[in-house]
Structures are given as C-alpha cells and as structure tokens.
C-alpha cells in the first residue's frame, strides 16, 4: 500500500547564518563547511538515526539559522 510520508530535511537561512560552524561539528554526516566556514547541507532526507543530532544542531545554532523542515517524502 502506498503511504504518503513526511521526511525531514535541513535548511540553512543564509542571511541569518554567521559561520559559527557548530552544526558541522555536531552533524558532520550531513553538514560540511565551505572554504569560508559556511555550512553546506546535504540535500538529503535526514535518516532516522540522525534526527536527534539534527534537532540538537538546530537548537544549538547561535544564530537560529538552521531549520529542520518537514517536506513531503516519496510515496513508498
């Protein structure tokens, strides 16, 4: 049976972000830093085992620039 799901994705507000880099330290599996120290977020669904870490990265951003968004996932 096809189930419509919501998946979690990370998104950076590039205006708010000031390159503190905590997110990349907390979640290197999904976030890398560019040569200027700004996060490059993998355009991937946050896998279940990383969701808690992702939430922590969102919470710990000093600029409140990281967002965890629910987006419609694939039908499976």
């Amino acid at each position, binding site marked *: 049976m096809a189930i419509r799901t919501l998946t979690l994705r990370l998104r950076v507000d*590039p*205006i*708010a972000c000031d390159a503190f880099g905590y997110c990349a330290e907390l979640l290197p599996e999904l976030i890398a830093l560019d040569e200027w120290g700004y996060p490059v977020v993998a355009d991937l669904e946050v896998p279940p085992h990383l969701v808690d870490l992702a939430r922590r990265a969102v919470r710990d951003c000093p600029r409140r620039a990281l967002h965890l968004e629910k987006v419609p996932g694939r039908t499976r």
Partner: protein
Amino acid sequence: MIGLAAGGPPRPGAPGGPSGSVPATTAVVDDAPRTDAAPTRLLRAWYRTGRADLAAHESVHGTLPLPGRHDHGWPGRLVELVHSSGLAGRGGAGFPSARKLDAARVARPGPILAVNAMEGEPASAKDQVLLAHAPHLVLDGAQLVAAAVGASGIVLCMAHERLPGSLGVQAALDERRAAHVDARAVEIVGPPGRYISGEESALVSWLGGGFARPTFRASKATPLTIRRRPVLVHNAETLAHVALIARHGVPWFRAVGPPDSPGTCLVTVSGTVRLPGVQEIALGTPIASVIGDADPVAEVQAVLVGGYGGTWVPAGLLPTPFAPASLRAIGADTGAGVLVALPRAACGLVETARLATYLAAEGAGQCGPCLHGLPAIAADLTSLAHGYGDGDVLARLQHRMGAVDGRGACRHPDGAVRLVRSALRVFADDVTRHAAGHPCPGRAHSPVLAPAGHAGREEHRWRYGP
C-alpha cells in the same frame, strides 16, 4: 552606458511615426505600422502621435476598460484572459502572470499592488523608456490588475535616483485624476536604486519600512507580506501587456510570438552598435536580427543575453530565437531583455571580469557564500583575464563557482556564476591563451560594459540611498 536617454524617441522615425498619420480615434490595433515587420504594441501611441499624454493614449488604445459597479464576474474573466494569453512576467523571472493573479485574488486582506519599475539592471532601460513614452498603458494595467485582485492600494516603485525623471509619470497621474480615469490612487515611491533592490523580496522589505535587501523565505510559495498584508509585485512592462490584452483579447495577443511564449517584449540593445536603445520585438525574433536592427559597427563575437547576471551567446548561435524555450536550450534566458553586442576586438574575459567585480560589490552582503564567494570569483577571473593567474586559478574558479551557486537567499550569486561560467565556455580559446600568459590585444580595448561605481553597504544606504 546605454545611449538611449529615457526622454528621446525609442527609434528613429517618431514623432509622427513612420506611418505619418494620426488617427482621429481607434481602439483597433493592427500590427504593421513600421516599414519593417517588427510589431509595435506598447509604444504604438508614441510612434503614432509623438506624444505620451492621455489624449494620445486614448486616441490610439481607447479608454480604460474597467468593470461596471455590479459586474462581479469581471475579475475572474480578466484573470482567465491573462491566463489564456500565456503572458509571462517581463521583469526577468518569466513567471506566468496569471498564476500570481490567482494567488493574489484569494489573499486576505486585499493585497497591495507594487508596480516594479526599479530596473536595477545597468544594461536595461526598457522600463524607463516605457514609463516615459507610454505611462498610461502601465497605469491602465495597474488599475486593471488592482481591480481584478481587489487590491487595497497601488505603489509605483522607481529607483530613488531616477525620481526626477518620474515627472512624466506624475503628470500622467495628474491627467488621470483630472479625467477621473482611475478607481484607485497610485503613489510613486523611490527605493534606493541598487542592482538588487528591485528583487521582489527586497522591494517588499523596503515598502514595509525595512532595507531594500532580499529576505529569506522558508519556501518560494510563502507570500511576500507587509504586516500580514500580501504584496503583489508586477513588472511595469507586464502590466502594460495586461492593459492591451484586456482591450484586444487573447487571439490578438497570441498573433505574435511562439505559442509557448506569445506577444512582444521590450529589449535594450547596447554594445558595438550604431543605434543602441530600446526596441519592441516579437518574442521569437532571432537575436541576430535584433542586433542587426541596431546596426552593428564592428564584427560581433558574442552577445550578452539577459543582463549582467546573464549568459554570453557566441556569434555562431545568434540565429537563436529570443524566446524563453529557445534560449533555455542554449543555456541562456531572456532575463530583463538585455542584449549587449561584444566586438571581436574586445576581450570577453576582461569584460566579464569587470562585470563579476561589479556584481560582487553589488551583493547585499547578507549571505556568507555570496559575500565571500563572489569577490573571490571576481578576483580569480580578473587574474586569469589579465594573465597573472597561478596554475590553479581555473580549477579554483570552477570549485568556487560550485560552492556559491544556489546558496544565497536570492538568485544574485547564481546570476554571477552563470555569467562567469558562460564566459569560460564561450571564450574558451581566450581562457587557454590567457592561462598560458600570452598577451591579449583585447585588453587595451575601451570597456564595452562599464558599470558605474557602486555605493557602500552601510545599512542606511539600503534605506535612504547613497
């Protein structure tokens, strides 16, 4: 610099128009007034009469077809008309105009209509020319759209620096007030005229009392608002087309241009041409013939299409029709209707490096990848163009473009990257020669694209201008 001042006739032949006759009154617009086949729709009253006043406008286009007081079906019919016409926005993004109207119609409270004539693109003059020569067509379109969506007010946004030139528009508004043409008042406002201050979210931010800088939206579907009131932003030329569609209907509008992007559009031609300025063309006209109409004075090696954040198109591809689908197929798009002809004797890399430097400085300075990345890209390209780049410069440039593309709150960095990527592709032979340190005779050529200096980034400048 664009040769055409906003006060002069857009093409030789006016006033009086090539036909030489001033019709007493007609609301029917045919499409063959000039000696060549190019259609004149937007600038028709100007070509016919040499005047831009209300009487000239109404003698050629007829009166404004506003709905009767109890005609409740009219808003839906107008939106349906725009939908069937296939009109796409003429400001640069090319978004289907009817989709914006659909969203605005159901918005509560009623939206503010912002007429975008900011024209921050330095190589474009079309909106200034349109407002100077056919202000009533733009204002008609604004009234129609405002009535269709139940707008609470209309603001006409022109760059602060150009407000002295808005006297013609002000006079047009005075004429309309005296003649009781309009159902809604129009206010002219002047945000700082920076490269990106006409970007939709920047404009709305300024109108709401903030800075004329782009803002971050959770998704593109999130409506732009001022204190919860939605703002509908339409380019000035788009509204002028709406004014014509409302009068003449869909078959008339679609009689010109390809089925998937019908109608005419204004283009601003500059560079190595004898007749720089604004032309009205049928969408789908080959780039080569538009450049040909402007009379090139030297062999053209490439044309910058769209704007500063646009795409270089090499001489071999100039037969490409100027229309969204055809341009997309060669990696370009219509943008703001800019065409700049680069002479063979100039150096495309040096020209592009100058533009990249300008674009880097004209960012809002808000997003890290753009703030740091664009100056780095401009510096890499400048060192490459002038033959003092190290061995890694090309690889570094490519890497940095990948690191910047798509990572801003607005599309500014994407435009800069698109420009530089197209330069590396189109001027590939030059890249090889410059990277090897060979001298380039084009370096000494006088600048074809010479953007003016930019103002600083201090916050007050984004509110009040330089």
